[in-house]
């Protein structure tokens, strides 16, 4: 059995009187593609926000296991610490650094791994230059993998919508994550772009060895991509299993279609 990367136990998130997520359990193993689905307002993005440290969970435990097998409880850790543990994410509404170029957006994902300081930047010693060249090369490589190299020097806000979505993924990949969380990556894409995204996500998992957890409403994409699915409804995890199991689960059908 492969190693569990993310383990969520008895986790709840409460906003005032609202239990956005209620005693949810979930685990993700290395190398999987897992989908989290559910009707609007089910608490999917809240779960993402808690896992990545944007919110602090109200109850329960969220742990991330490092590649060396060390488990770290992440409740209350700052987002940048969680990123260092190997989690990276994209947002439902695009949050690129819009005044930077596409290349710079990816380069900044490399931030925690760099060392050059102000003196290096001014005097341009060979170590700084080599570091910078390596970052540019790595970043261009990532752009190439997602087919974005032609946009490298364009400002992020000028990119077509589908390309901006991919650029978010590229930036997340630059942090060298072990687990990539994608929040509705296909939102607003046309069917052609969605098919390409399907391939891209598979390639990210197969070629880069990055485990994937995605929230998605496009069911054909979810069914084609994911090996396991979790279903969240009104904050409660109502079902989990393979796509076939979930598709035929009466509780899921009820949540989506009503009685």
């Amino acid at each position, binding site marked *: 059995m492969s190693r569990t990367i993310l383990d969520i136990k008895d986790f709840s998130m409460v906003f005032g009187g609202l239990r956005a997520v209620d005693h949810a359990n979930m685990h993700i193993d290395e190398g999987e593609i897992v989908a989290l689905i559910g009707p609007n307002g089910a608490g999917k993005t809240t779960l993402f926000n808690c896992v990545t440290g944007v919110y602090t969970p109200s109850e329960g435990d969220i742990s991330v296991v490092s590649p060396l097998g060390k488990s770290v409880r992440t409740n209350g850790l700052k987002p940048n610490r969680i990123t260092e543990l190997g989690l990276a994410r994209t947002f439902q509404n695009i949050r690129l650094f819009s005044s930077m170029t596409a290349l710079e957006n990816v380069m900044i994902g490399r*931030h925690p791994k760099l060392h050059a300081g102000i003196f290096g*930047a001014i005097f341009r010693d060979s170590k700084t230059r080599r570091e910078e060249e390596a970052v540019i090369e790595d970043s261009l490589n990532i752009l190439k993998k997602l087919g974005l190299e032609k946009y490298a020097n364009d400002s992020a806000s000028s990119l077509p919508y589908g390309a901006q979505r991919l650029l978010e993924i590229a930036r997340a990949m630059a942090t060298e994550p072990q687990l990539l969380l994608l929040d509705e990556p296909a939102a607003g894409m046309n069917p052609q772009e969605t098919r390409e995204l399907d391939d891209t996500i598979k390639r990210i998992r197969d070629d880069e060895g990055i485990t994937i957890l995605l929230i998605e409403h496009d069911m054909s994409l979810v069914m084609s991509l994911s090996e396991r699915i979790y279903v969240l409804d009104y904050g409660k995890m109502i079902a989990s299993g393979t796509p076939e199991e979930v598709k035929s689960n009466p509780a899921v059908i009820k949540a989506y279609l009503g009685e």
Partner: protein
Amino acid sequence: MNPDVKYFLQLVLSGLTKGSIYALIALGYTMVYGIIKLINFAHGEIYMIGAFTALIIGGVLQITTELSPLVILGISLVAAVFYSAAYGVTLEKIAYKPLRNAPRLTALISAIGMSLILQNFVLLAQTSDFLPFRSMIPDFSFLIPGKSLLTTTQLVIMVTTFVVMLFLTLLIKFTRMGKAMRATAQDKVMAQLVGIDINRVITFTFVIGSATAAIGGVLIANHTGQINFYIGFLAGIKAFVAAVLGGIGSIPGAVLGSFVLGMTESLGAGYISSAYDNAFAFLILILILIFKPSGLLGRNEVEKV
């Protein structure tokens, strides 16, 4: 030289000097605003504390040692930079960090409170009188023919400002920290999610902002020859006007705004009436707020949905 031309040149050079000082302070305003969207009203006080540090350290060194004035200037400048940076960082930790998620008005009131506290602290610890500041900048001999136009101190102020500006531009454009600062300014949450420790970025911003203000404080004290606890207030307000004039949050804007302000004050005082030089500063502010509220180089902010 034709006396009219000479008079005009004098005014221009004095305007550039004023502009340089405003720029050194305005940079801190605009950087802090860019990062945490807060008008740091205590910033003028950091500048004043820089001047006082140089007065004390420089004064002691002038009396107790035989060092050359330039060495003393160097030492007191470094001391002022470190001391003011420590004040700036502490200020952020005590008064702004706990309010980071509070409404912006709350943090603004906290800033005004800190400004009053620091003023009164220096008033109590020092004195309310103007203290004479013996200039540490010697006259360079090569300037003597043009001395009636440009004093050495003025030249030093302009050159220093230029160097600081160059340093900052390089810092923000090309360094890892500069890139982290730009990312933090655009989207704090996203910056954290790509692994940036935004607390370090904010601390660093306060260090740089306070350091440039301290350099301004030391230079202006050398120029005017006297300081008291209140100099930070008016200088702070003027630099704030300059930052808004150029477009708050924009670094080139702060520099441009400062020079426009310095020039206007100097020419207005020279050709219209010196009694109104502050009035000119605020007149420009009002005009800019009416006709181009985002400032000369400011971007029109689009509200995010």
